[in-house]
């Protein structure tokens, strides 16, 4: 057939000596995208299944990021609600016998520091707490007796679950308020029926049960009485064992630095000053470690999804040899064919990415809602999810696209 073209002075090629202008093969990007979309549309099940791999990968990554961010935000609000401005003072173990105590008048000394909001002290008593006279005197269940100032609840942001907190009157009488854990261990479920327990062999009437303390777990295991009652009925020494201080938020560190010297000017190094919210911050950091692990698992899923897309694309190239040959015969360059398949792969992965971001956000919302958290999805997770999907799509599509571009127009002649 070649000879014919040479010799035939065709009507449409008027001048064979002067080469005719061939122009250029051109195709609009939108048209290529439409071709790719219609190819995906004609193989719906395969399209959905291959996009599903990417969807799962992206969804898990978005969900992991969203959940860790939501839980972090929740922890953060919790920390802020509790107050990062709470400091505790404890008598450290001194150089001597280890029985260092804080001065009795420590709270009034601390109250003189300028940016203080609240200061309250707790005295740990050595007296045992028992349910009644029948039980073994050693079976305290870890419940300790403490004497506390009346402003304890305000300072520690805690509240009463049942009954009432101590007041001016009851703090002088044999009345006791139980921490949440203490009440449970002593088998006291209500403060209403005037139940009595034994502290140091003396009967104390339960007048209230507290909710758990967010930042002072020790107090949950405590039976709390008034300082006056502790002195009058138990003959206790009223040197505070722990002092809780809340400061004006901006001055936490300033107060922290002077607290030791203020509390015990003679032995400031024997006073241990701590900030309980540091523990929650540490928990925050620990959560981040898990996030990295799960993020890695999500990335593996995404990679597997990418392999799935590459697989489907290669299958598509083999099946569509005739179509590719036809397009080449119609004037598509190798570049046009390559672009068409790359676009298809990008669209597949993009579809998976969009679905994944949606699904991941939905999962985050659902889980955060059941946990009572506010849903927080970092924008970087959304952008990164889509971007990651597209990168995977580009990589997965590259080899199949090159293979498609290498096919010749004669593929269309095969039956």
């Amino acid at each position, binding site marked *: 057939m*070649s000879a014919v073209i040479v010799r035939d002075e065709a009507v449409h090629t008027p001048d064979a000596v002067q080469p*005719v202008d061939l122009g250029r093969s051109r195709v609009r990007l939108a048209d290529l995208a439409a071709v790719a979309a219609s190819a995906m549309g004609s193989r719906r099940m395969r399209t959905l299944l291959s996009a599903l791999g990417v969807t799962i990968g992206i969804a898990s990554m978005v969900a992991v990021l969203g959940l860790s961010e939501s839980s972090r935000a929740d922890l953060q609000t919790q920390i802020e609600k509790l107050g990062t401005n709470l400091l505790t003072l404890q008598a450290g173990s001194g150089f001597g016998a280890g029985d260092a105590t804080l001065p009795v008048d420590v709270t009034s000394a601390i109250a003189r520091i300028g940016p203080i909001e609240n200061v309250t002290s707790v005295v740990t008593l050595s007296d045992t707490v028992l349910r009644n006279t029948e039980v073994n005197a050693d079976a305290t269940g870890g419940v300790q007796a403490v004497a506390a100032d009346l402003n304890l609840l305000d300072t520690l942001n805690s509240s009463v679950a049942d009954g009432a907190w101590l007041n001016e009157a009851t703090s002088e009488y044999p009345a006791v308020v139980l921490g949440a854990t203490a009440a449970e261990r002593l088998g006291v479920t209500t403060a209403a029926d005037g139940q009595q327990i034994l502290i140091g062999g003396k009967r104390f009437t339960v007048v209230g049960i507290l909710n758990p303390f967010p930042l002072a777990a020790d107090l949950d295991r405590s039976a709390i009485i008034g300082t006056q009652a502790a002195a009058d009925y138990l003959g206790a020494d009223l040197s505070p064992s722990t002092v809780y201080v809340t400061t004006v938020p901006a001055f936490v560190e300033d107060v922290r630095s002077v607290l030791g010297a203020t509390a015990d000017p003679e032995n400031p190094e024997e006073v241990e000053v701590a900030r309980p919210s540091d523990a929650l911050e540490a928990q925050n950091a620990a959560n981040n470690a898990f996030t990295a692990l799960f993020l890695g698992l999500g990335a593996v899923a995404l990679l597997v999804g990418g392999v799935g897309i590459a697989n489907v694309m290669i299958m598509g190239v083999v099946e569509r040899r005739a179509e590719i040959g036809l397009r*080449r015969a119609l004037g598509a360059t190798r570049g046009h064919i390559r672009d068409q398949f790359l676009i298809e792969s990008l669209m597949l992965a993009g579809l998976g990415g969009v679905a994944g971001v949606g699904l991941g956000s939905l999962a985050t919302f659902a889980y955060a809602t059941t946990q009572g958290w506010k849903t927080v999805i970092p924008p970087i997770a959304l952008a990164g999810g889509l971007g990651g999907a597209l990168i995977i799509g580009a990589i997965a599509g590259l080899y199949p696209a090159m293979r498609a571009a290498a096919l010749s127009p004669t593929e269309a002649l095969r039956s």
Partner: protein
Amino acid sequence: MTIGGHVVSTMSDKRLSAARSSLIGFVFQQFHLVPSMTALDNVATGLLYTGADLTERRFRAFEALQRVGLAHRITHLPTELSGGERQRVAIARALVNKPAIILADEPTGNLDSRTGKQIMALFHDLHAQGATILVITHDHELAEGLPRQVHIRDGKLESDSALEAVA
């Protein structure tokens, strides 16, 4: 071998593609229509790689379908068309960019003889209107009916009726 004054063996892929797009129309034995596209859009595909926009492609596709006598079938899908009609759509697609030459590879190979005759009649009509059509076939009877025959065996030229006429 040259096409339109260009030496094929030295042409880059881009220029070869440009030549296919602007100078040559292809008609295949198996038609190679896209099943999910209407006749009109199948023909418009013939202009996809010219960079023309969809409106222009469809307009010119309609003209081409008119030329092959299928103006009444433009919205039909390939599956809704007979074999002969499908081949007409394929021919319209080859025609749509007004190529210098149309290459038809066994264009009647998948058609019954009556429909095949109609297709050949269409080729004669188009030829009469000025189109150059090259039909590749093993069917000697079909070849006899064409104005010029070139015999090729194993890639070698054996005879050319035009040259013999001169001699």
